[in-house]
């Protein structure tokens, strides 16, 4: 009986390890290719440790493609702005829907829920025309303003504030703090876990977004990394060493963020899944 159990366990570990290897190999392969020179790439040998280890690819992509740092900046700037705005505005909206009394509250809540169901392809074409008439095509604001709130996270913040202890706000009110003061000084600092979870997902969503920048941005100086990367691939079609180096540069920031905030990630996923 005991022996059978260990055999079962070994089998389960087998599954876990095999799948971990399957998960990691593409990344290791990309990483190793990014340190190989072109001869080795073309030769098509499958060695994970480069025969001639070189940093040259990273140098080349930053020197030859002078827009590469610019794309990095654009991505960081847009994703950070979108994240900060989302954190503030989604929380404010969620708080109003959870705590404040005003006419039309139910209707607005229903609209927020309804918007969740609409696939973005439906609103994408009108969005393009609206941004065009605002003169916001090919601009930072065209990327940032339409995505500065997110219905999913308004809903999530509302659920969070509904369960938030009322006593704190009542005490703050007795101390003569206004609703706005209470929200920014008392409530928001206590909502950190929920804020962190939404921040990570909003940042990732914006950072990785492909379709919106593809449609809205047309001048290469304004490209974000996914679009830049795609253009780059078009230019250096068989220079896989460069393409992989560029891909690695692009992946690193997200991995860093993840290592710092991994517990909020899991929380965030369980939140969106646990409803």
């Amino acid at each position, binding site marked *: 009986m005991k022996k059978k159990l260990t055999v079962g366990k070994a089998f389960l*570990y087998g599954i876990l390890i095999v799948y971990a290897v399957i998960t990691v190999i593409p990344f290791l392969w990309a990483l190793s290719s990014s340190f190989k020179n072109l001869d080795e790439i073309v030769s098509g040998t499958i060695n994970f440790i480069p025969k001639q280890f070189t940093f040259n690819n990273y140098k080349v992509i930053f020197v030859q493609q002078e827009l590469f740092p610019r794309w990095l900046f654009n991505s960081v700037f847009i994703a950070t702005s979108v994240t900060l705005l989302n954190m503030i505005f989604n929380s*404010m909206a969620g708080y109003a829907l959870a705590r404040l009394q005003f006419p039309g509250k139910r209707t607005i809540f229903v609209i927020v829920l309804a918007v969740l*169901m609409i696939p973005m*392809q439906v609103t994408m074409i009108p969005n*393009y025309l609206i941004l065009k008439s605002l003169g916001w095509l090919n601009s930072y604001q065209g990327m940032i303003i339409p995505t500065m*709130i997110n219905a999913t996270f308004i809903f999530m913040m509302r659920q969070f504030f509904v369960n938030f202890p009322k006593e704190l706000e009542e005490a703050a009110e007795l101390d003569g703090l206004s609703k*706005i003061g209470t929200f920014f000084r008392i409530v928001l600092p206590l909502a950190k876990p929920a804020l962190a979870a939404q921040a990570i997902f909003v940042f990732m969503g914006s950072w990785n977004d492909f379709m919106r920048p593809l449609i809205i941005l047309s001048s290469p100086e304004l490209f974000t*990394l996914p679009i830049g990367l795609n253009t780059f691939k078009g230019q250096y079609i068989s220079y896989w060493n460069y393409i992989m180096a560029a891909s690695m540069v692009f992946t690193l920031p997200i*991995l860093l963020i993840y290592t710092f905030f991994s517990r909020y990630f899991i929380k965030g996923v369980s939140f969106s*899944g646990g409803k």
Partner: protein
Amino acid sequence: MKNSLLKRTVRESMQGYLFLMPALFVLVVFLVGPIFYAIFLSFHKVQLLGTTSFDFVAFKNYINIFDDLRAKIALLNTAKYVLIVVPCQTLLALVLAATLNAGMKGEKFFRIVYFLPTLTSSAVLTLIFMWMYNQNGLINKVLDFVGLPTYNWINDPEIALYAIMAMNIWSTAPFFMVIYLAALQNIPESLYEAAELDGANAIQKFLYVTVPQLRPVTSFVVIMGLVGTFQLFDQSYIFSAGSGGPNNSTLTVVLLIYQYAFKNMGTMGYAAALAFALAVIILIATLIQRKFSKEESLY
């Protein structure tokens, strides 16, 4: 007294609207407004050259969908993609989660590793896989090494869509695994103990306790999977450099909508009609799924 109460109510309403202002602005201008605008567009022929012009064509855009061969191909490709990817990724996610949850050491380590693809952008993942799918790339070399046939993954019309499927199952299953993991931790231990008393083995416990208990979550995962897979775009676009090729084999509905809206001239209204058709298809698929799983208490 009554006056001050009224004043307070008014003030609270003002504050409510103030708090909602940014959200309402975006909701109205970029989400709800565009839905009505899209309805309008779908009944018009839109010309973007010079000043934008709209000619009313009634249901012509919708009728045209039925005569459009590429729309048919795109729908078939998308349907094939959904029908294969959703069950595979759901099953894989469930198996991985249940395995991880079986009191294994290093659970945290595996969880972090498995989550890597979820973090990485679709653009990067697609490029990495294109490099591996290369004619003399890693995957063909490995297949050759173990004596299996090799394929022209990217340029063979028979294969290209399957190459994208494999990549996306690999990259989305871990996300759903985390959702399953959270749910697994909520299954009461007593159910397993009862099953054990009845003499159930590990596999029976999985089939008769775990799977039924996870049903609401499975329904959620499948719906999210349906919505996500029907909207396949990034990977197809990068794989085929925007064309949906080779020979339309990676053309998806969303890629087709993109092409009609932003690449071809004068077909923006038709693209809007296609987008609505897609929204309806997604809605119907979701409803069928719900009916199927008979799980109304989920939300």
